[in-house]
């Protein structure tokens, strides 16, 4: 029991929590942008898979790490464009298209992987992003180590939250995005195209999801393997609801969730096999469902979420 509490006061635990949170932060911000503009993006799981592969493969074929991140983002944006084309101007079911995008993106990734690396048994490794301790700050016990001795991609994740929050709440474009998700006719009345705003939001959001996937292959691990996203995308959708569509709250949710995830791995080690390990692995998914139940009653969905917009229709 004491051991279980001691974990919380080790720096390595919090370092792991922030590392586990990073891909979730990117993808959660991506989903948040889409939903704030009124589009549920269920392509997230597949788009993260594409990002994980695209980033890793760029580096594996000789590109540098930041080029890999950029390629991942572009690949994500392309799938975002496909999703947006089908769901925004054509107004097709966001559920069906989203699942379709996930199936397509995942299978295309696996196909490309097999094509590029036909005869590999162990996934090849790349030289991933290395931790970049911030001088001074990283010396603060526990908190400093956790926050300031991470890889550059983690710092980018935190910066992304600040940028998303600033754009959404402090810029005209952010106002238009939020209005497109709440009251699209008001946006159109301002002479701004709802279609344009929504498509742009889905593309940017999808690019962030892909960078979240790329974090896994380029910072958390150093290779790509099948089914590595493992439901993280769906968890991010739950995190957006949990964070009531606000970047700051969603960030907090992601860190809480990741801390819990890091904690269950360590509990697993000290439990000594009394409890089957699968019970620990189930916890993150069960926790996501629990979180949804807790916030569902007071959740205020963007009013136009999942409602296609047709110009001139009311």
């Amino acid at each position, binding site marked *: 029991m004491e051991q279980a509490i001691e974990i919380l006061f080790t720096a390595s635990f919090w370092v792991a929590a922030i590392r586990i949170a990073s891909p979730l932060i990117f993808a959660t911000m991506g989903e948040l942008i889409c939903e704030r503009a009124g589009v549920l993006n269920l392509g997230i799981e597949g788009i993260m898979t594409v990002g994980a592969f695209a980033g890793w493969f760029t580096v594996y074929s000789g590109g540098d790490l930041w080029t890999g991140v950029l390629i991942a983002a572009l690949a994500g944006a392309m799938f975002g464009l496909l999703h947006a084309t089908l769901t925004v101007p054509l107004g097709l079911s966001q559920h*069906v298209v989203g699942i*379709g995008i996930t199936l397509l993106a995942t299978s295309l990734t*696996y196909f490309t992987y*097999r094509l590029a690396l036909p005869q590999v048994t162990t996934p090849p490794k790349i030289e991933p992003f290395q931790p970049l301790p911030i001088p001074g700050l990283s010396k603060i016990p526990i908190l400093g180590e956790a926050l300031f001795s991470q890889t550059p991609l983690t710092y980018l994740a935190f910066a992304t939250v600040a940028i998303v929050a600033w754009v959404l709440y402090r810029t005209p474009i952010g106002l238009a995005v939020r209005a497109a998700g709440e009251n699209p006719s008001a946006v159109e009345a301002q002479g701004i195209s709802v*279609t344009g705003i929504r498509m742009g939001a889905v593309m940017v959001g999808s690019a962030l999801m892909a960078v979240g996937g790329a974090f896994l292959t380029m910072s958390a691990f150093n290779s790509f393997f099948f089914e590595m996203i493992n439901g993280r995308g769906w968890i991010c959708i739950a995190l957006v609801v949990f964070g009531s569509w606000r970047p700051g709250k969603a960030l907090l949710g992601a860190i809480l969730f990741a801390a819990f995830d890091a904690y269950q791995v360590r509990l697993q080690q000290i439990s000594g096999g009394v409890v089957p390990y699968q*019970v620990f692995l*189930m916890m993150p998914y069960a926790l*996501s469902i629990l979180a949804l139940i807790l916030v569902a009653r007071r959740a205020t969905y963007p009013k136009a979420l999942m409602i296609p917009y047709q110009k001139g229709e009311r």
Partner: protein
Amino acid sequence: MRLEPKPAPSLGVTLLFPIAAIVVTLLITSLLVLAAGASPFSVFYLVAKGAAGSQFALLETLTRATPLIFTGLAVAVAFRAKLWNIGAEAQLYIGGVVTVVLGTGALPLPSYLLIPIIMIASMAAGALLLLGPAVLKTRFGVDEVVTTLLLNFIVLLFVSMLLEGVLKDPMGLGWPQSSKVIAEAQLPRIIQGKRLHYGFVIAVVAAIIAWIIMKKTVLGYEMRAVGHNPEAASFAGIPVNRVLMKTALLSGGLAALAGFSEVSGLKGNLTLDLSPGYGYSGIVVAMLAMLNPLGVIASAIFVAGIFVGADAMSRTAGVPSYIAQVMVATALLTMVTAILLTRFRVRWR
């Protein structure tokens, strides 16, 4: 741009767009085949031959179509009421669990009693599994898409726990697999010595029953009304929440039969690779069938044919068999677009 409803699409238009969707799907997959350094024509020929070129191929396609009919039906009835059940994969595995729990000797009954009991118990388990998300949706407003998706992961871990624990085969040399079901719990083969089993017949009967429920009963009418417009349905006196519960029970039960039929008819035991994503492919099957239960039979055979054909093709032509999944996902997206375009005209101003 905007969409305008077309007055009454002619037969030509109704056929034109779905055909165009197939052509576009083939064109896109051709590009991938070319990227793999093979000739599209020979690859498509090999896929078709592998799917339907011989008695063996045809039987294999029907065998693979069996679980897809069940999961396709599960999705079709749920989506009709706009209950977004993406958890057919989990319900399938629960059906498999119930089949090995009851079928490995716990109930020493003759076949004609044991098999119906296992079927009913499997359906009940699958139904209850989907009832959870349905209750969360109606009572608390929790989106069922996310809960059913997350349950897929939880249930798979649960099955893994059982297979390494209480359900582990003592003779399994340490593999995480269950014991084989007893002979009385096995569905017989339709043709001696071939893999096609009576699960296929049950699947076709299930499709017919689902079609009757959807088209000829009050419940089916209510499900369609709820799916079309819940507010209007509620205003018309339809108990929306209760209809959604019944839909969940029906859908979860159908998906669980996929697990039952795979274990009892084909595999004999439960393993962690019982389903290569049949639950997710069921979504494609249902959409290609435009949510019509009878159409599900045809679209399941079509999708199964692509999977079986691609497996055979990849052995000879060296194009990765993942091309099948790409093709099926592309077909889903092009087909929903095509169906929209038969009903609406796109105006660019």
